[in-house]
C-alpha cells in the first residue's frame, strides 16, 4: 500500500536545528569526556574508561530494559562471556592466537548469539519469571568459568587481552573506549528513534494494540537481544583488557545490579537518562570512598526510592516540555474533508464475510453460529445487550480468538483464525473498547505506530540511519501529522499521550488505525465517554472514512449514532443474530424493540 500523502522534501539543516536540543546534552557529555585528559590524572583515566565500558553494555541493555520493558537483571553474564571469549582467543588457549581487534568482533558475535538464547524466554515470560531466568543464567556462567579450567584458567584466571599501540597507555585505551561508547550510543539512539524503537515501546505498554498494527514481537525482541548481547560482549572484552587479569570473582552480581539500576534511575524509554545514570553510579563509590563497601546497598536504596517516589527517573526530571500545562477547554474538531488528500481510496472489491462462527468459553457459547458481511464502503452496525458477543466478534475477526467452527473470508481468500499480527497486512485495522495507547510516548508517535508495517527499512538500516530509514521516518511522520489534523488533534501532536483526556484517546486510536489505509476498520464503542458534540463529529468522521471505500464495522451502544450513519445493522443476542437489516427495518423490529431498544 502506498501513501498518497506527499513526502516532505529533505531539509537537513532544518532537521539538524530541530534535533539540536536533543543532541546538545550528548555533545556536552562527549565534550566533558574529551576534556578529562587535560584535567585528570591516570586515576581518572581508569574511572573514565570504566564508565565508557559500562555504558557500552548499558546502551544495548537499555533497549531491552528501558524500551522493551524486559527486566533482564543478569547481564553481567554476557559481560563475563565477552571478557572470557576475547581473553581466550587472544591468549590462544583453544586455537592459534588472534589479534585483539579480530577477537573483539568474534566475541561480539558470540555475545549476540547468547544474548538471544538468554532472551528467548522473554517471548513467553514476563517480569518476575524473565528476571529469574536471567539471574539463573548469571550464576551458571560464573560456575562454568570456574569449572572449565583448561580454557578459562578456573579460579586462577587468565590474562586479559592487550591492545596494540597507541591504545596500550591509560589515555590511549580511554579514547578507544570513548570512541566505541560513542558508536554504540549512536547505534542505540538510531534504533530508539526509528519505527523499531517505537514498536518496542508499543509492545511494552500496549502489546495488544501493537499486535493489531502488525508488529511482530519475536522479530523485534530477537533483533534487540542480538544488539544488546553484542554490545555486552564487546564491553566484556574491553573490561578484561582494563582489568589486565580476570578471574570469575571479577564479575560479581553487583555489576549486574549497577547496569540494571543505571537504566531505571535514568528512566524508561530514554537514552540520555541511563547514560547519566551510568556515570553517576560509577562515580558515586569513588567520590565517597568510605562508602565503597556499601555501594550495592546504596544502589538498592536508590532503586527503591526511584520506584516509590520517581518512577520516571532522570528522564522525567529533564522532560521540561511536558510540564507546560495544556489548554483546559480544548475541543476536538475533526476535519473529515481533508481525508481525501491523505488516505488512499480503498479498492473496495472485497467483502469481509463470516459464516457460522462459533466460539465458547467453557460452557458459555459467546458466539453461536454468526453470519456477518461487511461490504466495502459501508458502515455496518453491530448492536446488542451486554454479553451478546459484539466485542468477541471483533476479537475473532482481528484474530485474538480462534473460532471453534465457521469460516472467515476476505474477498476470495480465507482469513485464517487466530494470528492477530497478520491482520494489519490484510488491511484490517481496529480500535479498542478501552483505548490502548502508549502513555509515555507522544501523540504523534502513538499514531505513527499504526504505520509500522509500511516501513521499508530493515533493522540494520534503521540502526545505521541509512537513507531508506530516514525516508520511512519522514513519510510516517508526515502522514501521522496529517491524520492528526483529520481527527482534530494536531495541536497536541508533541504532548505525552497520558496527559490527554479520554475522548482524545479515542480519536488517537482512530488516527492510528487510519495510518494503515485500511480496507476494513473495526471500531469498538468509539462513542463511549464522548460528549454529544463529539459524537456528532465522530459520526461525520466515520462517514468520511467509509466514503474512502473502507468497510466499517461499528460496535456501539448509542442507538442514535447507529441509526444515523449505518447502512446495515446486525443485532446480536446471546451470541446469535436476533435481527439484521437496514436501520429502518431494525427500528421497527418487534423483538429488537422489546429486547434491546425498549419502547
Amino acid at each position, binding site marked *: 500500500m502506498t501513501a498518497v500523502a506527499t513526502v516532505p522534501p529533505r531539509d537537513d539543516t532544518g532537521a539538524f536545528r530541530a534535533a539540536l536540543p536533543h543532541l546538545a546534552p550528548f555533545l556536552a557529555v562527549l565534550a566533558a569526556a574529551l576534556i578529562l585528559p587535560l584535567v585528570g590524572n591516570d586515576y581518572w583515566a581508569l574511572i573514565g574508561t570504566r564508565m565508557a565500558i559500562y555504558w557500552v553494555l548499558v546502551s544495548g541493555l537499555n533497549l531491552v530494559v528501558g524500551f522493551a520493558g524486559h*527486566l533482564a*537483571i543478569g547481564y553481567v553474564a554476557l559481560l563475563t562471556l565477552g571478557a572470557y571469549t576475547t581473553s581466550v582467543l587472544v591468549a590462544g588457549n583453544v586455537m592459534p592466537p588472534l589479534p585483539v581487534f579480530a577477537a573483539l568482533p568474534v566475541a561480539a558475535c558470540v555475545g549476540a548469539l547468547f544474548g538471544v538464547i538468554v532472551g*528467548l*524466554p522473554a517471548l*513467553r*515470560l*514476563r*517480569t*518476575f*519469571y524473565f*528476571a*529469574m*531466568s536471567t*539471574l*539463573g*543464567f548469571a*550464576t*551458571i556462567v560464573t*560456575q*562454568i568459568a*570456574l*569449572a572449565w579450567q583448561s580454557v578459562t584458567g578456573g579460579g586462577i584466571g587468565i590474562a586479559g587481552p592487550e591492545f596494540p599501540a597507541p591504545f596500550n597507555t591509560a589515555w590511549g585505551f580511554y579514547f578507544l573506549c570513548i570512541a566505541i561508547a560513542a558508536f554504540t550510543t549512536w547505534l542505540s539512539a538510531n534504533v530508539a528513534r526509528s519505527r523499531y524503537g517505537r514498536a518496542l515501546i508499543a509492545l511494552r505498554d500496549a*502489546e*495488544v494494540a501493537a499486535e493489531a498494527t502488525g508488529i511482530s514481537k519475536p522479530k523485534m525482541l530477537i533483533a534487540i537481544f542480538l544488539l544488546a548481547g553484542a554490545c555486552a560482549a564487546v564491553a566484556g572484552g574491553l573490561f578484561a583488557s582494563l582489568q589486565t587479569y580476570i578471574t570469575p570473582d571479577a564479575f560479581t*552480581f553487583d555489576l549486574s*545490579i549497577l547496569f540494571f539500576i543505571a537504566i*531505571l534511575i535514568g528512566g524508561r524509554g530514554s537514552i540520555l537518562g541511563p547514560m547519566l545514570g551510568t556515570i553517576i553510579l560509577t562515580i558515586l563509590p569513588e567520590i565517597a570512598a568510605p562508602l565503597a*563497601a*556499601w555501594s*550495592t*546497598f546504596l*544502589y*538498592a*536504596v536508590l*532503586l*527503591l526510592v526511584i*520506584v*516509590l517516589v520517581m*518512577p520516571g527517573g532522570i528522564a522525567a526530571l529533564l522532560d521540561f516540555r511536558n510540564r507546560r500545562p495544556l489548554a483546559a477547554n480544548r475541543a476536538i474538531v475533526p476535519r473529515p474533508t481533508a481525508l481525501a488528500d491523505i488516505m488512499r481510496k480503498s479498492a473496495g472489491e472485497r467483502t469481509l464475510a463470516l459464516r457460522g462462527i462459533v466460539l465458547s468459553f467453557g460452557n458459555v457459547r459467546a458466539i453461536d453460529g454468526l453470519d456477518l458481511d461487511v461490504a466495502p464502503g459501508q458502515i455496518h452496525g453491530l448492536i446488542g445487550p451486554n454479553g451478546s458477543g459484539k*466485542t468477541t466478534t471483533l*476479537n475473532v475477526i482481528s484474530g*485474538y*480468538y480462534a473460532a471453534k467452527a465457521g469460516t472467515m473470508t476476505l474477498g476470495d481468500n480465507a482469513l485464517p483464525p487466530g494470528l492477530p499480527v497478520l491482520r494489519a497486512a490484510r488491511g484490517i485495522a481496529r480500535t*479498542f473498547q478501552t483505548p490502548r495507547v502508549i502513555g509515555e510516548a507522544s501523540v504523534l508517535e502513538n499514531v505513527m505506530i499504526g504505520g509500522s508495517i509500511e516501513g521499508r527499512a530493515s533493522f540494520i538500516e534503521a540502526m545505521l540511519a541509512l537513507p531508506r530509514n530516514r525516508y520511512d521516518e519522514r513519510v510516517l511522520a508526515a502522514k501521522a501529522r496529517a491524520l492528526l489534523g483529520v481527527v482534530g488533534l494536531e495541536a497536541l501532536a508533541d504532548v505525552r499521550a497520558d496527559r490527554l483526556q479520554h475522548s482524545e484517546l479515542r480519536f488517537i486510536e482512530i488516527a492510528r488505525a487510519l495510518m494503515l489505509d485500511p480496507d476494513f476498520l473495526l471500531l469498538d464503542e468509539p462513542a463511549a465517554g464522548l460528549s454529544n458534540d463529539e459524537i456528532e463529529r465522530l459520526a461525520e468522521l466515520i462517514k468520511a472514512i467509509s466514503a474512502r471505500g473502507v468497510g466499517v464495522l461499528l460496535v456501539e451502544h448509542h442507538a442514535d449514532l447507529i441509526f444515523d450513519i449505518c447502512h446495515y445493522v446486525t443485532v446480536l443476542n446471546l451470541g446469535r443474530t436476533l435481527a439484521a437489516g437496514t436501520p429502518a427495518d431494525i427500528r421497527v423490529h418487534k423483538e429488537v424493540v422489546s429486547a434491546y431498544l425498549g419502547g
Partner: protein
Amino acid sequence: MLASILASGLAAGAIYALVGVTYNTMFSTSRVMSFTAGQLAMLGGVFGSMFTLKLGLPAIAGFVLTLLGCALIGIITEFIAVRPVLKSLDQHLYVLSTLAVALMIQQVAAIKWGTEPQPFPRLIGWGSGVTDEKFWLPVLACALTILGLEYLYRRTLVGRAFLAIAEDNFAARALGLPERNLRIASYALAGVIGGVAGFSGGELLLAFFANGALLNFYGFVPVALGGLGNNRGAIIGGLALGLFQQAANFMVGGIFSSVAVFTLFIVVLLTAPQGLFGASTARRV
C-alpha cells in the same frame, strides 16, 4: 550412592520446597512475587548461627528468636516494598521494589556477618552418614510445616480468611475481612516459613550470605514447576528438583547439575508457563 542421592536430594529438595511455599504465602494475599523469599531462608541460617553459636543461646531459644527476626523482616518488606506498589500491580513495580529490599538484606548480611560461610551448630546430634540430622532435619521441618499450614488453612478462622483473600480479594474485602492486616500476617508467616527453611537447613547450607540469591532461584523453580500459589505443586516440585539436582550432581558433577537445573527450568517455563499444576491465564483483550 543411591542412598546418598536420596538423602541429600530430599534434604535440599525440602529446603527448596519451603522457600517455594514462602513465595506462595506472600503471593496468595498480595499477588506479589517477592525476591526476599530466598533472603529470608538465608537469614534463617545466619540468625540461627548468630544466636546459638555467637551468643551461645540454647537451640530452642535461638530457633524462636530466629523465627521472630525473620517474621519482622517479612513485615518490614510488606511495609516498604509491597504496600506502596500494590495500587499499580499491573506495572510490576514490585519486581524492582522487592529486588531492592532483597539486595539491602544481602548486603547488610555480607558486611555485618561476613562473606565467608560460617558453621551452624549441631542441634540434636542424632544419626550419622546418610541418616545424619543435617539430611532429615529439613525433611522433618518441611513435613511439619505442611501439617501446620494444612491445620491453619482448614481448621482456623484466620487460615480460612487467608484462603478467601487468595481466592478473591475484592469479594473478601466486601465481606469485611481485614485485608491489610491479613496481608501483614501473611508476610510474617512467610518470614517464619523462610526462617524454618534456613534454620533446619543450616547444617547443610551453613550460615552464608550468598545462600539468599541461590535459594531465590532454586526456591523459585518449584513455584514455576508447580504453578503460582499452589503449595502442593511447590512441595512436589521442590522435592523433585532436589532429587534431580543431586542425582545430576553425583553422576555428572556439580557444574553440570546447575546447568541441568537451569535447562529444566527454562524448558518447563517455555512449554507450560502456568506450571505443571497451575491454571491457565486470563484473557487479554
